[in-house]
């Protein structure tokens, strides 16, 4: 099975999906391959912050202007992916009034609207803030749901003829002399290998950029920086809370539906497949962010996770936060003499659309096409829908008890019907695909109860076997869940952990794989 397309996009993050949509809107066929599910990389592992640009106003005015520009565009084209929370930049005594004044001036220069607030005003808006604050500045920050944003881009592109192959990895780039003419890919589930021919190959793999370039013997200067985040069990604030000081680690709290996401750290990372949140990072984040919200120390945390940012290196800098958060578009034809290959990396979730626009402009230019970009005006198809808690509750209330059906997840109110609909679509290939597309396993118990029920549904449909044997899937899920919860196991989370472990290892007697094999157990 060999395929052919005009533009082959590698990487199913925000940038890749954005390029796919931009191409589709300009009538250029494309095919996207992604080795995992959508947003498996940094697009799905960030703080979900809709930047106003305030964070970069003082240190990187260009990034700040990009952010506020894209912020306004995303509010128009993807309102259903955004919660317009607003944000505060909060000054603690150690941050000083002077930086606050600089900050306000810099925001004005970047055309970011600011509203200076007195400590009293800020505390009445956000009562859990440290009462010692000396002031705050309101900016148009918000929260964004990256997964929905990416899936919506892909869905729109697909409806216009673009193609997507998930769980498909590139194993080689096909060369014809000095030109890249496509790629050999492998289906990670069926192990099938085949070729995709394309005059243009776009490497939109973010932190993985050099892994793809290595297949062509190329390399670019990017630094990999791990950022770790914590999720609280409740929502700590109505607005995004930032420290009003030069960007540093542990200075942002983003509300996200019913929870808050705390971040971040910044550590050099080499291993892209195995990176963990360390106990030291967790302790650091809790300590640092409890300066803004003192009650944080008593808070229950449900999960920790980390993402790896690709940072474009333009020179030698000691601190990764000093490296520009800007993006790089590299034409390997003019840089390295390898034609037909483009790399787009660096940047932020906030600028995914702009990055896509630049890539497609470049390709159009090379093709001699003069079609204008439409992604900044054309709304995404689902605009108008909402996944917010209040809308889920309203949906539930509208259902008559008899037709409401089972709730698979009591924490996050996921009805069985939702899962049935996803399965009927026939696109999911592994358990995590289902979890990405619903709120299953995202609540307080982190799937401890609902995954058992979900597997029951799969077994009832005998789909469990297709996905790899049900107790093997269950163990895989528990192992993946463990990566997220292990860093935050103390207090009430530890109680929950004792419960879950007692159920699966105790009551259900699930054992490590090694023992399964030696005992020939029924899994």
């Amino acid at each position, binding site marked *: 099975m060999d395929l052919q397309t005009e533009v082959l996009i590698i990487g199913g993050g925000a940038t890749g999906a954005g390029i796919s949509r931009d191409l589709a809107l300009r009538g250029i066929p494309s095919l996207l391959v992604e080795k995992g599910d959508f947003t498996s990389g940094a697009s799905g592992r960030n703080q979900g912050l809709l930047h106003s640009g305030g964070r970069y106003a003082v240190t990187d005015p260009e990034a700040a202007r990009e952010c506020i520009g894209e912020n306004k565009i995303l509010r128009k084209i993807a309102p259903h992916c955004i919660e317009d929370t607003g944000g505060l930049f909060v000054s603690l005594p150690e941050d000083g009034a002077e930086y606050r004044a600089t900050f306000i001036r810099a925001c004005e220069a970047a055309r970011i609207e600011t509203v200076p607030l007195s400590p009293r005003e800020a505390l009445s808006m956000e009562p859990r803030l440290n009462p010692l604050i000396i002031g705050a500045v309101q900016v148009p920050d918000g929260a964004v749901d990256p997964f929905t944003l990416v899936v919506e881009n892909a869905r729109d592109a697909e409806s216009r003829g673009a193609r997507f192959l998930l769980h498909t990895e590139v194993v080689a780039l096909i060369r014809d002399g000095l030109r890249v003419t496509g790629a050999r890919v492998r289906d990670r589930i069926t192990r099938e290998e085949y070729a995709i021919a394309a005059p243009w190959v776009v490497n939109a793999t973010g932190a993985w950029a050099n892994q793809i370039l290595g297949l062509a013997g190329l390399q670019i200067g990017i630094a990999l920086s791990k950022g770790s985040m914590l999720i609280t069990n409740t929502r700590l604030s109505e607005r995004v809370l930032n420290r009003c000081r030069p960007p540093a680690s542990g200075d942002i709290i983003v509300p996200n539906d019913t929870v808050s996401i705390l971040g971040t750290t910044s550590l050099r990372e080499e291993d892209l497949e195995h990176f963990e949140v360390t106990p030291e990072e967790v302790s650091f984040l809790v300590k640092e962010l409890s300066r803004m919200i003192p009650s944080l120390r008593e808070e229950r945390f449900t999960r920790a996770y980390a993402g790896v940012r690709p940072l474009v290196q333009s020179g030698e800098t000691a601190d990764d936060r000093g490296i520009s958060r800007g993006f790089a578009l590299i034409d390997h034809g003019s840089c390295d003499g390898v034609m037909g290959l483009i790399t787009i990396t660096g940047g932020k979730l906030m600028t995914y659309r702009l990055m896509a626009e630049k890539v497609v402009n470049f390709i159009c230019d090379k093709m001699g096409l003069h079609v204008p970009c439409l992604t900044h005006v054309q709304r995404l198809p689902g605009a108008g829908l909402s996944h917010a808690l209040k809308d889920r509750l309203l949906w539930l209330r509208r259902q008559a008890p008899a037709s409401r059906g089972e709730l698979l997840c009591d924490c996050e109110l996921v009805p069985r019907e939702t899962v049935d609909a996803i399965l009927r679509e026939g696109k999911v290939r592994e358990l995590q695909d289902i979890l990405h597309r619903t709120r299953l396993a995202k609540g307080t118990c982190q799937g401890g109860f609902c995954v058992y029920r979900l597997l029951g549904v799969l077994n009832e449909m005998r789909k469990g076997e297709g996905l790899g044997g*049900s107790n093997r899937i269950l163990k895989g899920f528990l192992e993946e869940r463990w990566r997220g919860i292990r860093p935050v*196991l103390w207090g009430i989370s530890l109680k929950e952990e004792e419960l879950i472990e*007692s*159920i*699966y290892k105790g009551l259900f*007697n699930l054992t490590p794989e090694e023992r399964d094999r030696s005992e020939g157990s029924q899994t």
Partner: protein
Amino acid sequence: MRRWDLIVIGTGLAGLTAARTAIEMGARVLIVGRGMGSLVLFGNTIDVLGAIPPGVDLEAGVTNWIAAHPDHPYARTGWAGIAEALVAFRELFPPPYSFVAAGMSNSLVPTGAGTLRPTYLLPVTMRAGAGITAAETLIVGFRGFKDFQGDTVSLHLKCRGVNIPLPRYGLEGLSALALARLMDEEPFRNSLGEVIRSQKAGEKRIGLPAVLGLREPAAVMEDLEGIIGARVFEIPMLPPSIPGVRIFNRFREHLIAKGATFLMGNPVTGATVKDGRCEGITICNPPLETTYRAESYILATGRFLGGGLWADMERVSEPLFHLPVSQPTMRGDWFQERFFQPEAHPIHRAGIVTDMALRPVDEEGKTVLSNVWVAGSILARHEAIEEHSREGIAIATGYLAAKRALTL
């Protein structure tokens, strides 16, 4: 005025066993606790030491195992202590709802995940599940009852399974407790039995979720067996556990009948300690705080889940008496890298270290409190989850703690 001989803190299986042992010895007993402990979560069968394979004589297995694990709570009780405590436990459950063993060794029972779990004593309602074969077994789940996925069980046990609709009730809001109460009603279980009979295709054993009634489970089972014409057995499932509630109810009824005082639901907020002795405990019943005093005290407050242990970001502590807690040095050492590893996570071995009589000791082995005894899962140096020893440890140490507390 000291009114009680013994105050038992904790109303899980260890505390209940201690209180009952003491009351049989003629003591005046007060038992206080917040809830049913892990009984309501996992109480099904009585695991003693699942690490001993079925077919191996349990006495010999446990005795050898103790020799290899001299720090384990069972090294305090010995096999004789376990056996004596189990006899006492079984006496509390006379037929028809009795606990039985497959001879002198562990047997394997099916679980709600379709796996098999080694255990020792089974309630009669689970007996027919031990040693089932695929050909003669039918697993029955109920539509809309999501905490027992019959298809998962039958798929793994490679036998036939059906999901049946429940007579009279729709899908909405069905809990295990609601189902168990319905089963106690004869007309309900009779019509359920009819539905199951119509689904049977020659199978000799029928597996159902463990919800066969709270009041008279043996009668529910027998009625269903009569109608269906096959043996019926319960399968342990996700919490809450109905068989565990039955155990709790039986203990409570017995203790109250024998004159013990039961205080449930209010937290024990503090303990007064003087000269290495506990002088009293304070129970908060807002707006009142009352102090209760006794000659002896048994601490059976469980682990993290039960509130017997508490972990902040740095340390594990015992919040009531502030007893020394044996634990790994740093939070980074609490857990293994993977969820499933052959060894237990180190934090599960944390807990209270005691002397041979189950009195708490410090790092040097010196007794910390001379009139306090410790029982159940709060004890250090066992791996109840991996070993499958939860109920055995609770019963054996609860029994021993009471004996020691009253014969000092």
